[in-house]
């Protein structure tokens, strides 16, 4: 059966609520479906004690989820836009991420923060950011960035079952994407990337919505005879360097593509690690495709001009292989 990204998130949540009574959802409007309808119907099914509306209090609800996680619940918290995770960062960074460590292993924070990121359709500067890099810089956090409905399904379930605080980032451009789920597949292991398309000439490393662009670019480039291998990272922490290394040892050329601001983005870390760990494998500089150093503008013409997409990846691959 084919599901949209939103439908499949709902199904994963539904199944996890069903499976484990410790799982609880909370967030603004989640009892009435949330801003994007992801949790539609779940409060009716599991009650408003387990699917809880909250006030507009990102700091407190993140703290409440963390405290509940310390005491055996498995909260799944929705932060409506990643831009508002700024309000939850004290707790996420200073408490949730560090609790296991600071307590010398006495406590754990098994919690998932679902949030929605990325630019599309004029959401403008405060509702369009891609801030995942911040969270990859915080030891103790796990960062998951699904690239399609089927990926989201397994990754969300695995994230909920993990014993660590997870930031689960949904790209708004993927919400309407449809995909057929292979039923009863094994759940993915957190920390394993996937080769989304095998190839031999150039490796394109991407995650989240940018995987689609990478696949589009690979399609296009294959017509002109360039074979692109696309890696979908799936999780940014842990970062699966083994899968990256296997690919780079084959292609010797790498493009890293993400929508986030290029400077200080996740691509910097990946590039640095490839440059250091796979120096002798590289036939050309690692190229990054990312957003120029600017806030996201409102006007669609400006948004389009700023955001990296399929053409940027094609150009980067051509420059490398040309």
């Amino acid at each position: 059966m084919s599901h949209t990204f939103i439908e499949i998130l709902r199904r994963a949540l539904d199944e996890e609520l069903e499976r484990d009574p410790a799982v609880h959802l909370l967030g603004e409007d989640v009892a009435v479906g949330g801003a994007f309808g992801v949790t539609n119907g779940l409060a009716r099914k599991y009650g408003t004690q387990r699917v809880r509306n909250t006030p507009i209090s990102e700091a407190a609800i993140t703290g409440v989820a963390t405290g509940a996680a310390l005491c055996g619940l498995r909260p799944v918290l929705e932060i409506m836009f990643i831009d508002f995770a700024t309000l939850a960062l004290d707790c996420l960074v200073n408490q949730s991420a560090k609790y296991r460590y600071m307590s010398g292993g006495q406590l754990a924070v098994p919690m998932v923060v679902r949030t929605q990121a990325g630019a599309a359709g004029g959401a403008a500067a405060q509702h369009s950011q891609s801030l995942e890099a911040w969270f990859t810089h915080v030891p103790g956090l796990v960062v998951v960035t699904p690239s399609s409905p089927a990926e989201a399904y397994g990754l969300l379930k695995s994230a909920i079952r993990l014993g660590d605080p997870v930031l689960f980032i949904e790209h708004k451009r993927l919400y309407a994407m449809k995909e057929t789920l292979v039923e009863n597949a094994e759940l993915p292991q957190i920390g394993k990337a996937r080769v989304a398309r095998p190839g031999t000439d150039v490796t394109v490393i991407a995650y989240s919505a940018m995987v689609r662009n990478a696949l589009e670019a690979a399609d296009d480039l294959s017509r002109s005879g360039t074979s692109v291998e696309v890696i979908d990272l799936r999780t940014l922490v842990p970062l699966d360097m083994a899968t990256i290394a296997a690919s780079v040892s084959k292609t010797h050329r790498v493009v890293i593509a993400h929508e986030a601001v290029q400077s200080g983005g996740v691509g910097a870390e990946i590039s640095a690690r490839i440059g250091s760990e796979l120096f002798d494998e590289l036939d050309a500089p690692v190229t990054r495709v990312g957003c120029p150093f600017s806030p996201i503008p409102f006007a669609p013409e400006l948004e389009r001009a700023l955001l990296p997409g399929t053409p940027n990846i094609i150009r980067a691959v051509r420059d490398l292989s040309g």
Partner: protein
Amino acid sequence: MAHGPRELGSEVVTVNEPAAPTLSDWKRMYRALWRIRTFEGQVQRLAAAGEVPGFPHLSTGQEAVAVGVCAHLTREDTLFTSHRGHGHTLAKGSDVQATFAEILGRSNGLCRGRGGSMHVVDVANGVLGATGVVGGNLPLAAGAAWAAQAKGKASISVVFFGDGATGAGVFHETVNLAVLWKLPVLFVCENNGYAEFTSREEHSNVKLVSAFATPYGMPAKTIDGNDLLTVHAEAGDAIAGLRRGSGPFLLECITYRMAGHFVGDAQHYRSKEELTAIKQKCPIERLKRHLIDRGVRETELDTIGEEARQEVLQAVARARAAPPPDPSTVLDYVYSAPALSGISG
């Protein structure tokens, strides 16, 4: 304190305080209400047609708060607002065309198309901005008030926010600081009973937002925000106090949003009865009935409304005619000097 002439929309309205407004003042305010109502209607229409980027939030039904408060402001006074800020911006006197053009993301928009519905800024008019982060502008408004205080200016700062924003910690932090520093900031809460799709009862045990002022000893009042006469009178008193240096004030205006949370909201969480009841609270209808009671002819009012409508429609047409911003300028305005953007390579 007497004020000079000021604008509502693009028209100059003289408000003589503390004397009560004259009939002609009320008529001008009636026009201002219609200007906002029409403006929001056009946003809705064009958004539905896919011509408005993003997800605009309309202030339809809440116009009396904007007009009643802003009637007391000068261009030097600073105004901050929320995601639902079109009406406040217009009521303070920003140009209809330039405001609408911004909401359409056009090159002649107030922010050259960079800001959009949730980030309208009009510095020349003292509109220092809307924000998309609930509660985010509260401390900024206090900061603007601090700047006025520090510079010995007589101007004040006003911030509009929703009832949902009182769930945000920064609301409480800001009130504490504003009271402590005796800042000339007017907190105007538009309590429309909802934050997105969730009613106030599910957000807080605290029914009235004005209750939050009590611990701080901050003067506060809850008023009927759909009655322009009340809003005008109470805001006038509060602002007069602020100008005398008596410190911050919280004005809670009970109001209703007649539209969805944003354009496209199906409003399943509201019953038909509720929607019908809200329509009957229309602030424009209420002012109209009041003015008719005071002897103004209905036809005169209808003419004023129609004039306002036409004015806005023409401004909207002009806004739509403007080109989009030039994509090659997308990296402008990030820093004070382009060289500082160097890191972007």
